């Protein structure tokens, strides 16, 4: 509570500092060239000197204060009868914290009631201590900043540098997050592979994590059926739909369509890419899947299941069309017009030119687009969750229900979970495999595209 107030105070101080420094700089300003930087920059420079130390101190204090408070509470005699077990103790402390903030709440555990008062006292004490530190930091920074308001002081350069640092920090954020995700994946997958051998996981063909107990644990974590389902649905069925349709629509749009037609079709295709995947998911589950089941029945299949690889793959293919088409569109557009002119001037027809000159020249770009599309398809989750089914099965029959890596990850991590059981941890191992495969596909595709671009520059 106190800290939130202090945060607002620091921001207010920054505002005051901005006005004060600017006003002072204006007094110094006597005409063009009389100052290195315009008064506004002095204002920003001052504000930064208040905000940066103040906010940094605030962030650090917010980070360490809970530890300090807990330490103080644990030192209290009332804490002596706390259970030794870590999790239980943490629960009681958390409850005490709630009670401290909200005295009228009913205690679930009596022990926490006793701790509420010491908790509140410690919070107030450390809160004021932190507030004092933060304000001192902000005021000290501001005081220093104010002394720098001089005619020759290069406030502009300093502010520009601060902006640069801010932008850099923003871009590093995304990268750091990625690293964080990879690190957590690696860590959790490592825990999983302590229990299950990686070889059994990557080559085994029996997937039944629910039965995995004791000695035969390796035998129930064979992920090959999941890999197969993923590839069959995402890289085979979906691509059989997306590649021809996407490629043909790209050829039509770049080579034949008049600019008016293009103006209508392109945005429409892009809308297709903007439909939430969950909408595709229920379209697959409620519309396409029953049709396919009936069709399978009419082919003479006994008991066709509603969920099928075909339903999920077809709808996923449709979802990917705009992606393939826009990559192929780019690749075709990157082939210089001189190429097709050369061919047309020899008396080739437009379709001969497309088939024999444009497509071969654009092939690397198209292949790269397809790879990106595959990496997208195998990571797709909603459609397979809703339409592909849960049975881990090695089958080439598209009417069979199949499961995928993403589906199993969802299964393992939703609902009641035993934490740290191999079953839960297997989600991370699957995630790691998925991550590595898509990463490789993306790297190769980007390389190919880059080479291809260079070839025409």
């Amino acid at each position, binding site marked *: 509570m106190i800290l939130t107030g202090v945060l607002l105070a620091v921001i207010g101080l920054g505002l005051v500092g901005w006005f004060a420094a600017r006003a002072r700089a204006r007094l110094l300003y006597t005409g063009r060239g009389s100052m290195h930087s315009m008064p506004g920059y002095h204002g920003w420079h001052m504000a930064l000197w208040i905000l940066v130390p103040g906010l940094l101190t605030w962030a650090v204090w917010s980070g360490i204060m809970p530890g300090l408070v807990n330490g103080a509470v644990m030192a209290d005699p009332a804490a002596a009868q706390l259970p030794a077990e870590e999790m239980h103790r943490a629960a009681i402390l958390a409850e005490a914290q709630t009670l401290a903030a909200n005295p009228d709440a009913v205690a679930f555990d009596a022990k926490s009631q006793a701790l509420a008062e010491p908790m509140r006292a410690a919070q107030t004490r450390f809160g004021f201590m932190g507030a004092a530190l933060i304000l001192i930091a902000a005021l000290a920074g501001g005081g220093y900043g104010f002394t720098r308001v001089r005619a020759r002081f290069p406030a502009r350069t300093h502010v520009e540098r601060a902006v640069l640092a801010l932008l850099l920090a923003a871009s590093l954020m995304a990268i750091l997050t990625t690293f964080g995700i990879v690190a957590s994946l690696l860590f959790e997958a490592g825990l999983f592979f302590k229990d299950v051998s990686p070889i059994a996981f990557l080559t085994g063909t029996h997937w039944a994590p629910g039965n995995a107990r004791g000695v035969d644990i390796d035998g129930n974590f064979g992920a090959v059926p999941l890999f197969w389902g993923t590839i069959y649905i995402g890289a085979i069925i979906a691509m059989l739909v997306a590649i021809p349709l996407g490629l043909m629509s790209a050829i039509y749009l770049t080579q034949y369509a008049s600019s008016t037609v293009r103006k209508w079709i392109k945005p429409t295709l892009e809308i297709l890419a903007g439909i939430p995947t969950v909408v595709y998911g229920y379209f697959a589950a409620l519309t396409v899947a029953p049709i396919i089941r009936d069709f399978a029945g009419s082919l003479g299949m006994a008991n066709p299941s509603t969920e099928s690889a075909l339903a999920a793959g077809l709808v996923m293919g449709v979802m990917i069309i705009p992606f393939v088409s826009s990559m192929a569109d780019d690749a075709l557009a990157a082939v210089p017009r001189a190429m097709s002119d050369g061919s*047309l001037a020899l*008396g080739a027809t437009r379709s001969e030119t497309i088939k024999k*000159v444009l497509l071969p020249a654009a092939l690397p770009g198209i292949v790269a687009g397809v790879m990106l599309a595959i990496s997208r398809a195998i990571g797709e989750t909603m459609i397979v969750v809703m339409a592909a089914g849960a049975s881990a099965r090695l089958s080439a029959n598209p009417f069979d229900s199949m499961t995928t890596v993403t589906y199993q990850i969802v299964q393992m991590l939703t609902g009641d979970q035993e934490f740290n059981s191999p079953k839960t941890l297997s989600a991370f191992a699957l995630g790691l495999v998925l991550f590595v495969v898509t990463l490789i596909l993306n790297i190769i595709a980007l390389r190919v595209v880059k080479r291809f671009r260079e070839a025409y520059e």
Partner: protein
Amino acid sequence: MTETKLTARNVDVFYGPKKAIDNVSIDIDNGIVTAFIGPSGCGKSTFLRSLNRMNDTIAGARVTGEILLDGEDIYAPTMDPVALRARVGMVFQKPNPFPKSIYENIAYGPRIHGLAGNKADLDVIIEQSLTKAGLWDEVKDRLMDAGTALSGGQQQRLCIARAIAVSPEVILMDEPCSALDPIATAKIEELIDELKENYAIVIVTHSMQQAARVSQRTAFFHLGNLVEYGETSEIFTNPREEKTKDYITGRYG
């Protein structure tokens, strides 16, 4: 020896609403080189492209008037632009070999038009075309190398060989030497001089010297109009029009 190959009568070319060529009439003869000269943007390329209907490939481009090839209207509904372009070949400003082997670059046209019955015939066409283009000795040992791996001058001669391979009657060249150094340029000019025996050749150029060296007739374009057309020697020594004189003496603009 000079018979008329191409006849243009009152030709206008539009890009959308914009008129790029205004009422041009010209006769282009067989067996000689005709040069188109004129300041940038005056419509030389536009007019050249209307002679083999390459303007058809540009959205919004429109040609009116009459253009006859051996007396046959090339814009008549019965005329197939694809067949026309096999008779009226074109070489572009920037060498544009296909990203295929040298062999495949030349074989492309003959294959499309079914000119060779078998591989042996095709090989003959390829050797003849490359020889005519003066490139055979330089590439005969590496026909399977990429056409794009040749030097700029060699690439341009490859493009000429590619055009010759479909046995055209007319060859249109749009500034074929502007991307080349003087030595490669000299080779191409020599080549043009040899080729004119068998084809009607039209060349667009910005170099007065080149026009004077290779052409027998010169047409001077200005702002979409054909200002003057006549024997090259006449145009360069004794132009009738003031504008032509200004242009060739470099006093233009």
